[in-house]
């Protein structure tokens, strides 16, 4: 009888808990997904201010956003690139021009790099450098002021974070180019 009561109490508590959680979760699910989508879309318009219309397209398991200008001409593509930085995941929205040769811009939507050091990858001067640089043969970084048209300057004291951003982009750009340009 004593054990029966223990089992019953645990069972009832768990059931009530599970019920409450599934209720809350089902109420909030749509909103959470919307938030994530909105964050990506906001970033796309930062990456490519000329874009007036965005069309989502799923190709070969990768979501690629097609960007159109006011007249309906294709101006490029945007996609999410993610990978690991110095401390945690870095998520980047990257925009490519329609010939898949130059970067339109990048926006970092999530990162947890060291404040004061690696976190400078979120600064505008760092992100702006990517505007218009060539992705072929690949993006490179250096510690000097950038000279070549596929080169960016790393954040001083935070080479690992800068390198992570460049590597994440290189990897994802290669993948996207393969998908869009068979």
């Amino acid at each position, binding site marked *: 009888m*004593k054990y029966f*009561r*223990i089992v019953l*109490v*645990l069972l009832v*508590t*768990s059931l009530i*808990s599970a019920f*409450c*959680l599934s209720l*809350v*979760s089902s109420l*909030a699910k749509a*909103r*959470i997904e919307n*938030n*994530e989508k909105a*964050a990506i879309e906001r970033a796309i318009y930062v990456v490519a201010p000329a874009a007036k219309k965005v069309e989502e397209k799923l190709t070969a398991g990768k979501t690629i956003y097609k960007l159109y200008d006011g007249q309906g001409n294709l101006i490029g593509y945007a996609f999410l690139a993610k990978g690991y930085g110095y401390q945690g995941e870095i998520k980047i929205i990257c925009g490519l021009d329609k010939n898949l040769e130059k970067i339109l811009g990048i926006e970092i939507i*999530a990162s*947890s790099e*060291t*404040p*004061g*050091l690696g976190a400078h990858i979120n600064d505008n001067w760092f992100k702006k450098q990517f505007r218009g640089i060539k992705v072929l043969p690949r993006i490179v970084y250096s510690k000097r002021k950038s000279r070549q048209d596929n080169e960016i300057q790393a954040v001083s004291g935070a080479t690992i974070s800068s390198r992570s951003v460049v590597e994440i982009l290189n990897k994802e750009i290669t993948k996207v180019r393969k998908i869009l340009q068979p």
Partner: protein
Amino acid sequence: MSKKTIFLAGLWREHPNLRQLLGMCPTLAITTSVRNGFAMGTAVLFVLVFSSFMVALIKRLIPHQVRIAVYTIIIATFVTIADITLKAFFPQISRALGPYVPLIVVNCIILGRAEAFASRNSVGNSVLDALGMSLGFMWGLMAIGAVREILGRGTIFGFRLGIIHFRPWIIMLLPAGAFFALGFVVAFMNFLDRQRRFKT
């Protein structure tokens, strides 16, 4: 014990993170700004008040052997509700607090209050105790957050203080700075206590 004593215990005399040094994980990890401290404090307030209320309400129904398991289920439920709510309505705060909201489950302040107070006191007193403890926790986080934000960023609540020739001490935003700030806030609290004792 009067209602006032119960409520005030958590705010100063038995302050959860500055006196009992409980809940050190969020205290050190998320206090890089006052706003983060406030957000974390609010999440803990919600979880602690509701958990203490539930535990006090059903304390007579729970067999002694499984009480901790039942408390944990109750706490985990409220923590998950808080986590989902933050994600749905305050995505930016949720991103800033990262995994530390789900980690409230293992925050010993909450299980501690359930076991030490709510399981042997009335519902009203338990809620009062939970309110005092969580408000104490909140001001503790905000005090440490203020020290780190002012010294580490030169801002408070995100507003630039505009002290000329001040270069932020980045170390205050790093883990080591959390320990410095905690030490100074605890020492200041003890200093105030000693002053008061001498006077009376």
